[in-house]
């Protein structure tokens, strides 16, 4: 072998080795469709933070199948049009292996047909509209999986609690004018009315509503036993702020979030007696939640809420599916998700039923003496 040949072989080997190394360094891209602007931007920010923390931890531990994960985020503005656009962008430009999202039910429902056509798995982590479960899995969209409980399941848990309490006979409803608010109203009405509790027709507010004073004045005159609230983000905070100022003492219920954002309202005592059903609370001490809360707080300076927890869990679940599939190919990730048995931070094991709906536990929270009290976990 001449020196020249040796050099050629060495160069070829080096190129091959470098090529392999480059291929190994190619990250696996996971898409996140999230409201980064608009009234739900605060929730989107937390969802993104949760996902970013998961990606960082997975990568620090060596990634999935030895490859690093990369998060590609697209803004869906919490609306169906931008939701669809965000999915198109993630699929065609981002070349994602899977998508997590889209936080808002209306955006998720608009994404579902797109990912089905493109054959990219979608892990829904926060949207609660019961329609998503109806459309996913057997006889429907085989590429959509949901890890959080639907409003129907949450409503059943909350209704059981309210009925056992026995004080509530007439409930007024203030919801977001979206699939979330309307789905929540339908689910709560169906369960409560079966048990003799009357639920009003509901008031549905467009997103970014600022003034709730007219509705609250009417509540002061109607005097229902409780007001079920299905708003979110800045709108919910606005509602709570004005509820506090209105001096009303009608207990709130529904899906009121008692996270760090609402701390001032909770501490003021204005919403004492309020009950809420949520898939997550940072106050839960089961599983590894305390450590998770600490890691999250350290990185972002705020405590996690339901959106951050679910964003975190969804990315971890996808990474687990990639590991078990030994591939980042979308079809294989989908198959692996179908057979998932993933232990989440709260200790629940996430498995999907034939409608691709997981059944994690949810929590009933109540405000007692200006403090959030966990009244119990229940299985959805």
């Amino acid at each position, binding site marked *: 072998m001449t020196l020249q040949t040796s050099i050629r072989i060495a160069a070829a080997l080096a190129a091959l080795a470098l090529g392999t190394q480059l291929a190994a360094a190619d990250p696996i891209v996971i898409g996140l469709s999230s409201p*980064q*602007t*608009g*009234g739900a*931007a*605060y929730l*989107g*920010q937390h969802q993104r933070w949760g996902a970013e923390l998961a990606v960082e931890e997975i990568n620090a531990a060596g990634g999935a199948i030895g490859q690093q994960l990369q998060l590609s985020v697209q803004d869906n503005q919490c609306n169906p049009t931008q939701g669809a656009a965000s999915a198109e962008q993630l699929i065609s430009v981002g070349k994602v292996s899977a998508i997590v999202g889209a936080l808002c039910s209306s955006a998720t429902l608009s994404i579902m047909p797109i990912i089905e056509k493109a054959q990219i798995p979608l892990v829904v982590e926060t949207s609660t509209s019961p329609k998503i479960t109806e459309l996913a899995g057997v006889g429907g969209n085989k590429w959509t999986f949901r890890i959080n409980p639907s409003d129907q399941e949450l409503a059943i848990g909350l209704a059981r609690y309210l009925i056992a309490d026995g004080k509530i006979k007439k409930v007024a409803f*203030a919801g977001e*004018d979206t699939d979330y608010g309307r789905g929540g109203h339908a689910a709560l009405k169906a369960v409560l009315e079966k048990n003799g509790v009357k639920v009003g027709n509901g*008031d*549905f*507010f*467009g997103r*970014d*509503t*600022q*003034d709730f*004073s*007219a*509705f609250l*004045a*009417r509540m*002061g*005159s109607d005097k229902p036993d409780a007001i079920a609230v299905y708003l979110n*983000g*800045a709108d919910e*905070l*606005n509602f709570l*702020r*004005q509820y*506090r*100022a209105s*001096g009303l003492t009608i207990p709130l219920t529904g899906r009121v979030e008692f996270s760090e*954002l609402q701390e*001032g*309202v909770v501490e*003021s005592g204005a919403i004492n007696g309020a009950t809420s059903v949520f898939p997550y609370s940072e106050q839960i001490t089961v599983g590894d939640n305390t450590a998770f809360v600490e890691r999250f707080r350290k990185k972002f300076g*705020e405590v996690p809420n339901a959106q951050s927890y679910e964003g975190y869990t969804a990315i971890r679940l996808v990474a687990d599916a990639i590991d078990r599939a030994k591939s980042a190919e979308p079809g294989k990730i989908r198959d692996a998700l179908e057979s998932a048995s993933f232990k989440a931070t709260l200790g629940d094991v996430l498995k999907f039923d034939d409608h691709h709906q997981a059944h994690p536990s949810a929590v009933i929270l109540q405000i007692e003496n200006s403090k959030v009290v966990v009244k119990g976990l229940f299985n959805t």
Partner: protein
Amino acid sequence: MLVSTLILNGLVMGAIYALIGVGLSLIFGVLEIVNFAHGQIYTLGALALALLVGHFGFGFLPAAFVSALGVAAFGYILYVLFLQHIRKGEFERGIILTLGIGIVVQNALIYFYGATPQIVDTEFSFRDINFLGLRVEMIKAIAVGFAIVSITALHLVLTRTRFGMAIRALSQNREAALVVGMRPEVVAGHAVVIGTALAGLAGAVLAPVFTVHPLMGAPILFKAFAIVIIGGLGHLPGAVVASLIIGVSESLAGGLGSASLQDAAVFLVMIAMLQFRPMGLFGKGVRI
């Protein structure tokens, strides 16, 4: 009782809408620019107050005053850098430019401030006063006080001073104003400063009433446009009357009807106005 509460609530909100509507109307009257960045200017006022009260320990009244001044200074910079270069007849350019400024300001605020909504508590929050047997939040009553004082002051300036006459002259006939030796760029600069200061003041006084976040200006902008159209483009007393009509219609629609009707009320009034009085309540062309 419910109806009186709703009417009073509506008048209170209407008075605050007037601050935004009058500023928008003034800028249109003088520059013939439809200021699509007005909502973000209102947001700046609210964020400035949140910062001054929350982080620097200002009282509500001085914080509202300083916020309005700060926003006015920002308005002047906008005028010097961008708005004064728009020539007569460049209507579309004005729209696109202000729309762009609004988007940049909004995203800059998200970048620096984050999207987290915030509640601003002041020394007047969660206290009530009794007005003719009806309960009114003190912070809203103070906001109405600000609106009445500043709009009355503006009216006096426009009708009783040379400075105000110059603004009115320019809005009524730009060419004639030039002929008599007025400098339109100076007068227009003053109008922008006043208009943005009023929007900033509206944001500041509403900060303790609503939650504060960088995206809070977008929904109120459309309401402000409706007010300006109903009142008559560029007509200040018209904007005030339209604001009160909108405030009361919204409140009655939401309180006696439903939330959806409340949202629709402002635009139903606007459509009716365009159908029966296309120039608005007081519109006779552009005048102040």
